[in-house]
């Protein structure tokens, strides 16, 4: 997979449709996601942006009665091919959720959970991974003296950065973030935003956000979803200054949503 490091797009979505039972939630989505950059998914509630995000690491597999057609290529491999190892896929495409969801274990155990899942058991190695991941998630200084304490004792913002550290610990190349700051206060939000910008150096990030300023502040490209349809995608600057579709313009100027 290393030969793709230099190519620009890391995920390539072609004609993706998704149904929950009889309800079609995504219609013919085509999108390329750039490597080592931040892609923001925007759109009103229920437009399918979170659903779309979850198709990228097959988290929708967990929901019964989901039907998917079309193709999602990750590094030129079709992730919906029956031969795909879902566990390995999710190791490479990590996820951070809307509500911070650390496990009810110690801070250390939370971060070590992923590496342990993928077979790392040496204590020294785990120690290194935990420290490195917590540093990458900009939370090491706050928790280094209480790694054995329960993670649920942290504040919401700290919990979310811990969840980011937990996702980083399995060394993914893509990070999916589903409205990671919607449950947080402004200060925690700005910390996560700064962190996201730093993470861009090493990871490709796809972030769902309700907050248009946030999309402008941190993303390189933006995709606008409306009622299951990808209306428009492109450079964030271009989308927010010269949208080519009337619906995009209406949405970003706040006429609906």
């Amino acid at each position, binding site marked *: 997979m290393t030969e793709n490091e230099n190519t620009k797009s890391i995920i390539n979505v072609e004609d993706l449709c998704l149904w929950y039972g009889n309800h079609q939630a995504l219609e013919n989505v085509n999108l390329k996601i750039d490597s080592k950059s931040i892609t923001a998914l925007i759109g009103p509630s229920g437009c399918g942006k979170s659903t779309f995000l979850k198709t990228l*690491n097959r988290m929708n597999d967990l929901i019964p009665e989901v039907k998917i057609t079309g193709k999602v290529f990750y590094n030129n491999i079709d992730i919906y091919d029956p031969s795909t190892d879902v566990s390995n896929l*999710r*190791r490479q495409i990590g996820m951070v*959720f809307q509500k911070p969801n650390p496990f*009810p274990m110690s801070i250390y155990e939370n971060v070590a*959970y*992923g590496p342990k*899942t993928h077979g790392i058991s040496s204590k020294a190695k785990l120690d290194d991974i935990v420290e490195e991941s917590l540093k990458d998630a900009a939370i090491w200084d706050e928790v280094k003296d209480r790694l054995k304490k329960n993670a649920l004792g942290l504040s919401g913002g700290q919990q979310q950065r811990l969840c980011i550290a937990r996702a980083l610990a399995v060394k993914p190349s893509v990070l999916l973030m589903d409205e990671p700051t919607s449950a947080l206060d402004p200060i925690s939000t700005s910390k996560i935003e700064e962190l996201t910008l730093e993470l861009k150096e090493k990871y490709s990030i796809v972030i769902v956000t309700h907050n248009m300023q946030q999309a402008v502040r941190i993303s390189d490209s933006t995709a606008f979803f409306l009622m299951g349809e990808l209306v428009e995608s492109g450079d964030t600057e271009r989308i927010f200054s010269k949208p080519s579709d009337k619906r995009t313009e209406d949405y970003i100027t706040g006429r609906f949503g």
Partner: protein
Amino acid sequence: MIKEKLSFKRRFYIVIMRALMYICTSLTACLVLALVVYLLIKGIPNLSWEFLTSSPSYLTGRIGILPDILNTIYIMIAALIVVIPLGIGSAVYLTEYAKNKRIVSIIEYAAETLSGIPSIIYGLVGMLFFCQFLGMQTSLLAGALTLCIMNLPTIMRTTQESLKTVPSSYREGAFGLGASRWRVIRTVVLPGCVDGVITGCILSIGRILGESAALLFTAGFAHTLNGFVDGLGSSGSSLTVALYVYAKEQGEFGVAFAIATILLLLSFMINLAAELTQRFFRRKKTI
């Protein structure tokens, strides 16, 4: 003004209602208290070290309940060894794996109905199936297996309910890291609800301890001193059955009350254990 006086009718109504509730509460409390005190007064004088640690002998006329205590423990161990893995396993399957929610809800409904059936019916079925059809005769094993079937729905349902209290965000988080379903269950879901599962099991122990009707049919009445393995294969009475036999067939009411005191003490301890486990895990969760 707020200080306006209530009408006589309303004040009268309030006083009467309050009095009625006092009466109901004190009646309930007195009933329980009277029962316990009566049992203890009747039972404690008949308790002695020899009574607890010897087996009965017709030759010397000695009465001892050691075999009955051991039989009760054997039945409990045998029943729990089978029912706990079975109950927890089926609960995990139904809640975490099963796709067809329709069939799951039918099974849940059936389990709830089963747990409401009078225990004597389990005894009858146990006698026909284990003792006669499977040829186990009246034995502690047949009794233990009958109690297994009786407790299976309870353990399954309580485990299921505790599994459902684990937030789905924990599961998502673990799946998102690439964990397999079994790893998610083993490392995140089960530890997250272990208190509920253990409480369910402890309450089941209480039910096993207190069960008599189902054992009358299946486990027998002998008071012989046996080891665990020999005991399972032979007939033997549990404490509850012994209580029935001493009181009803031998007219030994003193002995019956002494056994009742022991049973009361044991069930008190079991409830205490259930309470303490819950507290222990709740404290652990909040730290």
